[in-house]
């Protein structure tokens, strides 16, 4: 039965087609992922991949890799990237450009802001079903916390905590200039 199963298992997929994007915002860019759900062969490899393309001034909301290390390779353009370690220290704060490689360990928080018309990268992740958790945005960790945890944890008012939780409506990509998705502060 190997001929009909393992031998014929699909082992290629194209991540450069915007029409199959998982996250798509015409003004900001797109993100496509490839994991063991979309390419079952990856279950054996325990690896997955993510293709990203950002337009100028677009930003990937700060996030961390829940269950994988990430190897990021820039294929086009430039971006400013900040990475924060478990000690809360900024361990990377630089512009990265085409041809450069950055390894981001599991749990470390990362934010990317495009600084060219088209910033594109490929990330390889060391888990076939790699997950991220965002720090800001509609599906972020702060959005899932009660207001009381935010007010006591950060020593801020209830109104400030509400803004922190609800002002950013996007889930993954946003404008770094801050105008997109912003709700009234009133």
């Amino acid at each position, binding site marked *: 039965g190997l001929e009909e199963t393992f031998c014929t298992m699909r082992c290629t997929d194209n991540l450069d087609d915007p029409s199959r994007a998982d996250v798509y915002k015409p003004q900001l860019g797109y993100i496509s992922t490839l994991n063991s759900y979309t390419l079952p062969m990856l279950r054996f490899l325990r690896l997955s991949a993510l293709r990203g393309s950002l337009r100028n001034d677009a930003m990937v909301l700060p996030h961390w890799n829940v269950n994988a290390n990430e190897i990021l390779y820039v294929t086009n353009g430039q971006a400013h990237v900040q990475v924060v370690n478990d000690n809360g220290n900024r361990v990377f704060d630089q512009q990265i450009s085409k041809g450069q490689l950055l390894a981001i360990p599991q749990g470390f928080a990362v934010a990317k802001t495009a600084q060219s018309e088209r910033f594109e990268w490929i990330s390889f992740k060391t888990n076939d079903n790699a997950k991220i958790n965002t720090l800001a945005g509609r599906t972020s960790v702060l959005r899932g916390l009660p207001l009381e*945890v935010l007010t006591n944890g950060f020593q801020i008012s209830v109104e400030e905590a509400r803004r922190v939780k609800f002002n950013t409506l996007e889930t993954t990509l946003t404008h770094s200039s801050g105008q997109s998705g912003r709700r009234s502060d009133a």
Partner: protein
Amino acid sequence: QWGNECQLDQLNVLEPSHVLKCEAGRIEIWDHHAPQLRCSGVSFDRIVIEPQGLYLPTYFNAPKLSFVVNGRGLMGRVIPGCAETFMDSAGGQWQGQGFRDMHQKVEHLRRGDTIANPAGISQWIHNNGNEPLIIVSVFDIGNNQNQLDRNPRAFHLAGNNPQGQVWLRKSQQEPQNNMFSGFDPQVLAQAFKIKLNTAQQLQNQKDNRGNIVRVQGPFGVIRPPVRGEQRQEQDN
């Protein structure tokens, strides 16, 4: 990394080697370099949360299994991609006047509860009882969910740890800050669409309360009543 660590000629009783004191509790940590723990591939800690203490949201590089030794409280976890299923609004409209808050599931904790938490999932705990809430946890640092080194690593979303991660045995230990403190406040202001001074507040830079803080005022998170608890409002 796992050379001869299980060649054990003698087993010993282990005591905590580090104590992190916080405003409303303490965290006791067993030295995971102890041969028995190295062999088992685990680390161990015990957190004591005083009444009205709040263990601020933290995630780890390894899965953990916890047991409530004493006390009672509330616990919340934030799982990526899950909806805020606990919502408090008069008309069901979250943008309306009656809206107060919405967040992910909150659970009651009591003595004997065993809690499983995967790596990378942040968790907070509040002691709403009258006695210390004591929770012991084992961290499976040898688990394949941990893709870092064989050390337990805590990532704080709020609060901090002024003593630093002393169990890592680094020659120069520095205070541990929360994950927001490493970002430029401008980046946070852009990401959250908030004012710069609020972004700086998120960094807890002038905060020395540790990772267990005392709650100011009522802790009115949305939660279902426990069995036998009186309802505050009567429906018609």
